[in-house]
């Protein structure tokens, strides 16, 4: 339960990263900006022409002049239309490209998280980052960023055009710059937190509702109806408070903004009228400036509207980048695993929290090919010892070494070829059954260079049936380059793995067999089925040492027993360390370690431990019932 929160990047790093990723596409950015600028310029012709018309009408002009002005007005509209279209496409391409890079980067970083972090952090925080933060970023990168870009360009050009028409009249804009800037700054300082709180509060409502719905049976069983109703009302109260807060921010911001847009219009009319009466400016200039100022408010409004989205995106980006800041937990050494592949723990001590050791100097030798069981009460340190034996954590003091090579110093790919940990934490990936089975094979099959890394094929020793007398060597993918993953030959392998974990029955009954889509968006597999898939996947990876931490705990006890038996036949010759809460696992093992209080309290075969008449024997007797005939030792 060490729910360590993953780090969050600081604002400077976020800015640097944003600059970097934008700078990767200088051309796309330049094209977008140019097109939008041209479109904005074309759009600025309108007021100017109208000004001319007004002036013309005022001064008395010809119909043909009006026709020409109107025609050019229409012409610029068409030009602006065309430019806008291309600018939009360019901006869209730029935005989506940047966004795709951002999210791919993030997933890459998630996938590179150190093993120990993954094992101890839990997935909640990460899932939030992958869903809410990526989504917030999408809004920022795909919507806010282009809109803001366009708004800024349009605004600058409109300002320029205004100044060009009449520097004097355009000065009225300055009246509102300060109040607008002040109120916007005041708002932005509060808005991000406010909107994040609002979103979080709303998420609580939906989470609460889905908890009520998913737990409807529990609600009924325990009579929690009033509680759930009260809890929903409480969530709503929280959401309403958050909404009222941001509303109060907008109640300040909006009127100031909206009034600010009108003030320069009135100002330009007033000043324009005065200047016109003094013959400093023409009527055309007054009209054009007034209309420009009115037009200016559109991009300004857009800019202010999207700024807070951009801020929220920045906060999300900080969390996404934070994932990359977890330091590596492995120090690669140059030891090679050599035969005999004894898995040796010496004086192993380990603590999750400094000063609180959970293992107190464990000594242990697991021989190659041995079936080794660990039993003991919860919190005794079995799972921790399992993780150390799988090379996920390094010991605080002491060593855990396989064939003389400390596990924590093995390169990750090599480690996985040697030792694999399977926990009760099951997950069915969205994809086909085949995808789920071949997760690890891809690595094993394509990376043939690492010493001791097996090919994708299950060696003959692992086959269940006796219809496969030939060795597995020729079926190794990549040997002749012709064996494809979907070849029937490859399927045989998958089916054998499924058969070994008793999953061939339900798998064959799936509508599309191995091609059936499972996991989110597909057929939902039960927890026991998910565990079976995980074990079948493991068989395909075929490591030398397997650490099974309650890997069958979700199966019906009888099914678990059967599965373990067939699995153990398939895994003959592999070292299997099983942490189990069902004693038949211990009974079937070559040796049993009773772990208590971070130490191995008893060690020996089932028979030896029974003969020793210690804790294990007592547990076995109470579990098994002394009236039953003693099962034959295997």
């Amino acid at each position, binding site marked *: 339960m060490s729910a360590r929160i993953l780090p969050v990047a600081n604002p400077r790093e976020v800015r640097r990263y944003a600059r970097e990723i934008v700078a990767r596409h200088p051309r796309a950015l330049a094209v977008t900006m140019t097109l939008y600028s041209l479109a904005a310029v074309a759009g600025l012709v309108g007021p100017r022409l109208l000004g001319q018309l*007004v002036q013309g009408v005022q001064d008395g002009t010809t119909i043909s002049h009006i026709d020409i002005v109107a025609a050019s007005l229409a012409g610029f509209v068409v030009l602006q239309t065309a430019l806008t279209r291309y600018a939009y496409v360019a901006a869209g391409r730029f935005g989506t490209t940047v966004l795709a890079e951002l999210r791919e980067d993030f997933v890459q970083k998630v*996938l590179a998280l150190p093993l120990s972090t993954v094992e101890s952090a839990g997935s*909640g925080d990460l899932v939030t980052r992958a869903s809410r933060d990526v989504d917030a970023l999408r809004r920022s990168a795909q919507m806010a960023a282009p809109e803001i870009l366009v708004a800024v360009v349009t605004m600058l050009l409109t300002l320029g055009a205004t100044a060009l028409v009449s520097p004097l009249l355009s000065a009225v804009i300055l009246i509102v710059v300060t109040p607008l800037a002040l109120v916007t700054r005041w708002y932005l300082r509060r808005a991000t937190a406010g909107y994040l709180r609002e979103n979080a509060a709303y998420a609580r409502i939906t989470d609460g*509702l889905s908890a009520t719905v998913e737990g409807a049976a529990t609600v009924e069983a325990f009579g929690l109806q009033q509680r759930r109703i009260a809890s929903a009302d409480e969530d709503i109260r929280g959401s309403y408070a958050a909404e009222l807060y941001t509303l109060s921010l907008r109640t300040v911001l909006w009127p100031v903004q909206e009034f600010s847009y009108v003030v320069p*219009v009135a100002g330009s009319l007033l000043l324009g009228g005065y200047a016109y009466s003094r013959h400093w400016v023409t009527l055309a200039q007054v009209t054009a400036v007034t209309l420009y100022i009115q037009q200016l408010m559109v991009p300004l409004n857009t800019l202010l509207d999207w700024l807070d989205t951009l801020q929220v995106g920045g906060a999300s980006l900080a969390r996404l980048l934070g994932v990359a800041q977890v330091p590596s937990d492995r120090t690669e050494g140059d030891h090679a695993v050599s035969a005999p592949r004894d898995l040796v723990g010496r004086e192993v001590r380990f603590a999750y929290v400094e000063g609180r050791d959970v293992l107190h100097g464990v000594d242990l030798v697991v021989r190659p090919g041995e079936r080794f069981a660990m039993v003991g009460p919860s919190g005794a340190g079995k799972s921790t010892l399992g993780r150390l034996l799988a090379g996920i954590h390094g010991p605080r003091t002491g060593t855990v070494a396989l064939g003389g090579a400390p596990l924590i110093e093995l390169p990750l790919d090599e480690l996985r070829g040697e030792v694999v940990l399977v926990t009760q934490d099951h*997950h069915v990936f969205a994809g086909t059954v085949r995808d789920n089975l071949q997760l690890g094979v891809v690595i094993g099959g394509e990376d043939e260079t690492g010493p001791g890394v097996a090919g994708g094929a299950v060696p003959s020793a692992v086959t269940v049936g006796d219809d496969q007398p030939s060795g597995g060597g020729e079926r190794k993918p990549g040997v002749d380059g012709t064996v494809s993953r979907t070849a029937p030959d490859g399927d045989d392998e998958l089916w054998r793995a499924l058969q070994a974990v008793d999953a061939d029955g339900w798998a064959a009954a799936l509508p599309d067999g191995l091609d059936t889509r499972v996991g989110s968006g597909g057929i939902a597999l039960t927890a026991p089925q998910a565990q079976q898939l995980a074990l079948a996947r493991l068989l395909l990876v075929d490591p030398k040492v397997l650490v099974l931490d309650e890997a069958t705990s979700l199966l019906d006890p009888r099914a678990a027993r059967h599965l373990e038996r067939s699995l153990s036949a398939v895994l003959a010759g592999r070292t299997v360390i099983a942490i189990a809460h069902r004693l038949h696992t211990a009974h079937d093992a070559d040796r049993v370690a009773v772990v208590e209080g971070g130490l191995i309290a008893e060690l020996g075969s089932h028979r030896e431990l029974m003969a020793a008449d210690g804790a294990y024997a007592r547990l076995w007797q109470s579990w098994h*019932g002394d009236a039953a005939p003693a099962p034959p030792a295997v």
Partner: protein
Amino acid sequence: MRRLPVPDPGQPDARSATRYLLWLVRNERATIFGGMVFGVLWMVSQALMPAVIGRTIDAGITHRNSGELLRWSAAVLALGATTATSGILRHRNALVNFLAAGYSTVQVVTRQAVRLGATLPKLVAAGDVVAVGTSDVAEIGGGLDVTARLSGAIVAIIAVAVIMLTTSVPLGLIVLVGVPIVTALTGILLRPLHERQQHFRVRQGELTARAIDIAAGLRVLRGIGGEAAFAERYRSESQGLRAAAVAVTRVESGLAAVEVLMPGVMVAGVTFLAARFALDGKLTVGELVAFYGYAAFLATPLRTLMEAADNMTRAHVAARRVVRILNLNPEINDPDGSAGPELPTGATLADEESGLRIPPGSLFAVVCADPGEADSLAARLARFEDAGAPALGGVPLAAVPVSEVRKRILLSRNSDRFFTATLRDELDTSGRATASEIGAAIDAASARDVVEALPDGLATEVVDGGRTFSGGQLQRLRLARALLAQREITLLVEPTSAVDAHTEARIAQNLAALHAEGGGGASAGVLAGVGGGGLVEARLMVAAGALRVSDVHTASGVPEAQPVRRAGHPALREERQETEMGADTAAELLGQAARGYAGTGIPSQASMTQATMIQASTSPSMSVSASAPSLVPAVPVPLDSVATVVDGAVQPTVATHATSLATSAASLPANGTAASPVAAPATPTGSAASRRTTVVFTTSPLLLDHAHIVAYVEGGRVAAVGTHRDLLLLEPRYAAVVTRGEDE
């Protein structure tokens, strides 16, 4: 501002989607009216802006009249101030409309969800209900929110039309006909885009789901490798989505272009005509500028009209989904009619269909040959399914309100989840448990270490439905919660399937100890029956591991069947009707009952013999039940348990001191009192605990060994009953199921 949420949203009108929406409107009429008023002010003040600017140019500028100039500039400012003020007030009202509609919907859907309870997942996919919270609420809110802007748009369009027509009829007509056509055209162009965007959003959701999938399954991925494949797949999907996004952008760009083109053309055309009119002197210069302004402005209210139509359609669709959920009804219903029978306390829970009979106060275990059977049997006994005819003390569960059954019988399954609150609140579902009771339950469930590992102990917030706990930890917390609920009968389905053997052993002992409490280890029971024309009563005691039968009383002269008539107890009559067993079954049950009350291990051989002996002693013709209350001692000391014999079968019934002491004490020979030196429980709570029944559906030998009675169910019927050890010896199929599952 209104205070939200309202304490009670009331009964929604769920007859149709429209009625539901109208119900919401009625509830929010004040803010809806307010929103409309300010919406009109806000939009009209904007509509008048071109006119006022035009007047400023005409009256103030072209005529070089500084007084007029000042006046009209002030009017511009005043109009701007009106827009700004009414704008925010409209927004405030509209937001409340939006929120109140959404919140009310969440409230009524939550109330409906808890009303449906266990039926909910059977009738509707969880996703559909959750979608109410994630999207429908916003759609419905959007429908109400838009009313403010809609009314503003309508009034503004009318206002502009009037102004334009009074200025220039032909130009006014052109604008009034042209702008709607242009807007409608844009709308038609929009439609296919909406569909494409929808499709694109679905793909976007899929990619997000992929990222979540990777994050959630990261442990597996990192554990055995496959990152490269996943990164590659994600990259290609991400790039695919990027390409799709670009394609959508292309279509969108067409729209963006049309949005520039259409009003642009409109403005150009109007300006062209207006300029000609102005040249002819039919329009002033200011009016020319104003017409330019109207043409540009009108697009806004017209877009609002279309948006409103769209919002209301979507609100209607969303309301339809909400109404569908609101119209669902629970599968399990209260019996028709008013006051039916009441569930008796301390009675046997019996299931006719399977032949299962669970005596009160016992730690009873059920082993099902087929694991799926355990689920349905447990659901049936707790009336989570309307099947068979389970009865408590002869009163069918279906004959009393469901809430009554829930108060008495708890079903705790591994599929049960936790919610988001402090662990203390999550465990103490009644909210009434004392700290020591909570502590005791945690200890009994062997979950002390789980709580202690938490940063704030019991005050720690349970997040994400408890998914941060491991399977074994969750199971122990679930057990603690079930024990704390302190129901008379607790059904636990595979409560220890995910905990290790050491912990399981402790839990088994703790459960047994809970049931031995109050009996003080030397538990006792009274066995009584009417036989041979008389009342037979024997006292069973277990002390030092041996069963002792004492105080065998035979009250002669009591006519057969008389106690039934005399007591007139409704439960008794029921009891009698439902039990017809052979003499050997009776003997077996007799033995079980004896052991059941004993609570702790009696050597199986001994108990069988003793049971037979008791049976013999009460034979030959036990036929009518004695009333349980009749055996309650006159002194108000809670008796551990009383067994009655009906038709040769022991009917264990717990008699509480609350049950009609007066009638029984008066009507029965004093021998009832003679049998009373039962070890009295130390505390009332202890006695309550000892009277509680726990039924465990399991195949775990550790739990079974501690159960008082074990029933083995095969093919939907009870195939054998006895203690675990008896059954291991006598029933090979049982032994196969519980010890190994599969013998070599």
